[in-house]
C-alpha cells in the first residue's frame, strides 16, 4: 500500500532539529557528550520505494510517496487509494509516477535524559542506503540527527554546540532527509524565462524568448515521442502556443514573410496535437471519478484508451515528420546566435518594452470590451473567444518579467489566472462532452448498457461543472472590470514607458 507524508515530518513542527553528515568516526560524538545520560531506544528500520513524476511534482509540493518493495507500483494518480488520489490529483494531474529507487534506513536511537530521567532530546545515528533506479551504484549516507523536545530548548542548544565541535560531523542545512535528492536525476532547468533588461531590442528579446520555448520543445520532444507521459505533450503545446502568439502579436519584428510562415507552421503543428491532448484530459476526468462510477465506466475508459493509442501514434508520426523537423530547424536558424538582418523586420531595432506596451494596451482593451459584452446567458463560443483573448493578453504580460516590478505583475496575473481557469473549465466541459459522445458512438458500442448509463451520469456532471464554472467566470469578469484591476494594468503600462534620458 502506498504511503504519503510531508517531506518535513522527520522534524516535528516548532521543535528544533539539527542534522550532521558523518564523514569520519561515527562514534566520536559519544565522547563529546561524555557525562550526559543516554538511554538506548528501539532501533528504527524501514525500506521503501520512492515515487515521483518525471518533473518532481511531488518533491516540489513537499510530499513523499512511498510503497513497500514488491508492492504494485501505481502508474497514475487514479491508481492510488481514492482519498490520496483526490489529494494529489491537483499536484500530479495526468503525470505518470515512476519509481525513483529504493531507500533503506537503519536508525540507532538514544534518548538524552536530564537529572530527573526526563527525555530532553533525542539522537539518531542514521544509515541511508539508496539504490537509484536509473543507476547501478548504490549510495550510502550516514547522518547524525539531534532532535529537540518541546520546551527543552536550552538542552538542545547545549548539545548542538557540543556536536558542532566534533571532528567529522558536518552540519547540513536541511534537517529532514529527502531521498529524492540522491535518487532522482538533476531537475530539468530548461525553458527558464530569459532575463530581459529595459534596453533590449525587440528582435533580441523575441530571440531569447523563442530560444527558451525551443528548449522546452526539445526537452519534451523525446518524452512525447516515447509516449512516456501525457504532460510532455502539454508542456510542448504551451511552448508552441506561446511562441506562435508572440510571433503574431509582435508585428514587424521579423520579416513579414518569415513571420507568417513560422506562425502558419506552428499552427499546423499545434493542430496535430489538439485531439490527443483533448482525449488525455477527458481520460483524466473519467479516471478521477469516484470509485463506484469509475468501476462502471471501465469498459468505456478502456475503449477510449485504445483510441488514445491510435491518436498518440498519429501524433508521434506528425511530430517526428520531416515537416515538423523542418519547422524546428527553421526556428533554430532564425533565433540562434546574433539577430540576422535577413530575418529582421522594420521594428526589429525598436525597444522591446515600447512594442510590448503597445500590444498590452491593445489586448487589455480587447479583453475589457469582450468582458463588457458578456452576460450570464452568453453562448459558450463567446466565452471561448474571451478565453483566447485572455491567453493573448497573458503571453505579452509574461514578457514583462524583469521589466516591471514583480508585485505589480503578480496582481495582474492573479486577476487573469482566475478568469482563465474558470473559462478553461467551461470550455473543457464543452469539448469533453462532444468528444465523449462521438467516441462513445464510434468506439464504445460494445461497452454495455451499464457503462453507457454511467457515461450519461458523467456527462451530466460535466455539464454541471461547466455551469458552475460559468457562474464563477461571470463573477470574475465583474472583478476584472473593477477599478483596482484596471489601475493594476495601467501601472504596468506606466512601468514600461521609457524613463527620461532613455531612448524613446
Amino acid at each position, binding site marked *: 500500500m502506498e504511503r504519503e507524508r510531508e517531506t518535513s515530518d522527520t522534524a516535528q513542527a*516548532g521543535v528544533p532539529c539539527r542534522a550532521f553528515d558523518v564523514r569520519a568516526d561515527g562514534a566520536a560524538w559519544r565522547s563529546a557528550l561524555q557525562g550526559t545520560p543516554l538511554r538506548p531506544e528501539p532501533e528504527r528500520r524501514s525500506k521503501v520505494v520512492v515515487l515521483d513524476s518525471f518533473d518532481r511534482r511531488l518533491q516540489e509540493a513537499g510530499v513523499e510517496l512511498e510503497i513497500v518493495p514488491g508492492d504494485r507500483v501505481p502508474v497514475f494518480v487514479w491508481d492510488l487509494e481514492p482519498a490520496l488520489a483526490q489529494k494529489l490529483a491537483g499536484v500530479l494531474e495526468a503525470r505518470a509516477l515512476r519509481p525513483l529507487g529504493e531507500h533503506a534506513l537503519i536508525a540507532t536511537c538514544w534518548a538524552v535524559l536530564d537529572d*530527573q530521567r*526526563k*527525555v530532553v532530546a533525542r539522537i539518531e545515528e542514521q544509515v541511508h542506503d539508496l539504490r537509484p533506479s536509473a543507476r547501478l551504484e548504490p549510495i550510502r549516507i550516514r547522518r547524525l540527527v539531534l532532535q529537540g*523536545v*518541546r*520546551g527543552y530548548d536550552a538542552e538542545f542548544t547545549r548539545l548542538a554546540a557540543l556536536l558542532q565541535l566534533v571532528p567529522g560531523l558536518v552540519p547540513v542545512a536541511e534537517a529532514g532527509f529527502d531521498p529524492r535528492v540522491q535518487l532522482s536525476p538533476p531537475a530539468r532547468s530548461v525553458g527558464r524565462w530569459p532575463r530581459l533588461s529595459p534596453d533590449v531590442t525587440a528582435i533580441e528579446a523575441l530571440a531569447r524568448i523563442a530560444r527558451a520555448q525551443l528548449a522546452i520543445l526539445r526537452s519534451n520532444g523525446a518524452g512525447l515521442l516515447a509516449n512516456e507521459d501525457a504532460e510532455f505533450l502539454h508542456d510542448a503545446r504551451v511552448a508552441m502556443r506561446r511562441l506562435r502568439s508572440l510571433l503574431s502579436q509582435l508585428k514587424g519584428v521579423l520579416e513579414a514573410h518569415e513571420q507568417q510562415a513560422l506562425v502558419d507552421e506552428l499552427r499546423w503543428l499545434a493542430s496535430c496535437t489538439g485531439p490527443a491532448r483533448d482525449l488525455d484530459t477527458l481520460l483524466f476526468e473519467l479516471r478521477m471519478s469516484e470509485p463506484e462510477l469509475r468501476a462502471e465506466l471501465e469498459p468505456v475508459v478502456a475503449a477510449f484508451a485504445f483510441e488514445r493509442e491510435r491518436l498518440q501514434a498519429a501524433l508521434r508520426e506528425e511530430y517526428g515528420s520531416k515537416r515538423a523537423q523542418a519547422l524546428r530547424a527553421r526556428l533554430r536558424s532564425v533565433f540562434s546566435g546574433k539577430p540576422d538582418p535577413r530575418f529582421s523586420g522594420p521594428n526589429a531595432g525598436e525597444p522591446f518594452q515600447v512594442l510590448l506596451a503597445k500590444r498590452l494596451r491593445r489586448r487589455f482593451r480587447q479583453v475589457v470590451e469582450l468582458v463588457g459584452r458578456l452576460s450570464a446567458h452568453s453562448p459558450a463560443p463567446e466565452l471561448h473567444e474571451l478565453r483566447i483573448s485572455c491567453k493573448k493578453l497573458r503571453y505579452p504580460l509574461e514578457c514583462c518579467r524583469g521589466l516591471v516590478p514583480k508585485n505589480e505583475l503578480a496582481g495582474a496575473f492573479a486577476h487573469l489566472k482566475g478568469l482563465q481557469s474558470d473559462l478553461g473549465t467551461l470550455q473543457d466541459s464543452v469539448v469533453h462532452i462532444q468528444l465523449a459522445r462521438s467516441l462513445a458512438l464510434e468506439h464504445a458500442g460494445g461497452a454495455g448498457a451499464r457503462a453507457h448509463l454511467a457515461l450519461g451520469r458523467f456527462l451530466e456532471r460535466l455539464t454541471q461543472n461547466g455551469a458552475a464554472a460559468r457562474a464563477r467566470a461571470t463573477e470574475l469578469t465583474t472583478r476584472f472590470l473593477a477599478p483596482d484591476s484596471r489601475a493594476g494594468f495601467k501601472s504596468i503600462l506606466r512601468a514600461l514607458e521609457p524613463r527620461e534620458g532613455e531612448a524613446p
Partner: protein
Amino acid sequence: MKVLALHNLKGGVGKTTAAVHLAHLGARNGRTTLLWDLDAQGAASWILRVRVGAGTRPRRLLRDRQNLWEAIRGSDWPNLDVLPSDLSLRKLEHWLHGEDDPSRAFARALEDLSSRYERVVLDCPPGLSSLTACVFDAADALVVPTIPSTLSLRALASLYQHLKPQRESGLQLLPFLSMLDARKALHRHVREFVRAKGLGFLGTEIPYSAQIENMAAQRLPLSVDGRQPAAAAFASLAREIEARLDAGGPGPKLGRSHLMQFLEDAESGAAQRNSSS
C-alpha cells in the same frame, strides 16, 4: 482536531490514568496529541515527568497565545506533548469567574492548538466549576470513568442531566466502568446491569489492577507491547472511543430511567437487608 475530556463528579475514579493512557496510545498511533492537565494536583504531569516551566501563569495561558505555546512541554514519547499543571492552576478558576465569556476564551485557546494537534486530551478536576463548564462546552466527547458502585452511578445520572444542553449541541457522553473489582458483589451486580441494559456505556471495562497503581509510582504508562491485561483494556478503550468519535452524533442514550430504577432497587434491597438483620 478532536477534544476528549476525562471527567467525573467524583474523585479517585481513574480519570488521570485513563487520560494518560488515552493520550499515550493516541500518540503511539501516530496522532499528534496534547494532554492538557487541568487538575491542580498535576498528577498527569507528574506521571509524564513534565514540570510547569518558570514564568507560566495559568491566567495568561488563555489570554496570551505565546504563553500558551511556551507552556507546552514534550513528553518522553514522540507525538505526545503535555500542558502541565501544578497548584497555581487554581488561580485559573478564579480568573474564569471574572470573565464575561469564559467558554469562548477556552474554546479560542483550543482552536489555536488545533493548528498543531489532532487530539487534545483534557484531564479535568472532579466536581463542577467554571473550568469544567468551559470543558463541557468545548469538548467533542466527555469520557466518564465510573466505578461500579451506586454512588458513582448516581453521580453519572446527575452529570447526564446536567449536560443536557451540551449533549443536544453534539457533546458525546462516553461512560465506562473503571476500577472494576470482580471479587466484589456490588461491582459484579452493577456490571451485569450495565451489560444487560447498555445504558450508553462503552464496552471496555478497566479492571482494578495493582499494575495501574504502580504505573503512577514508576511514572510510565503501561506498555501495550507487554502482556498486561490492564494495558490491553486501555488499548481497547482507545479504539472504542475513536470509533465513537468517527461515528459522530450524540451516541447511545444513558437510559436514565433504567438507571434510577436500578439505584432505587439497590437502595431498597439494602434497606431490607438492614431491617432483617
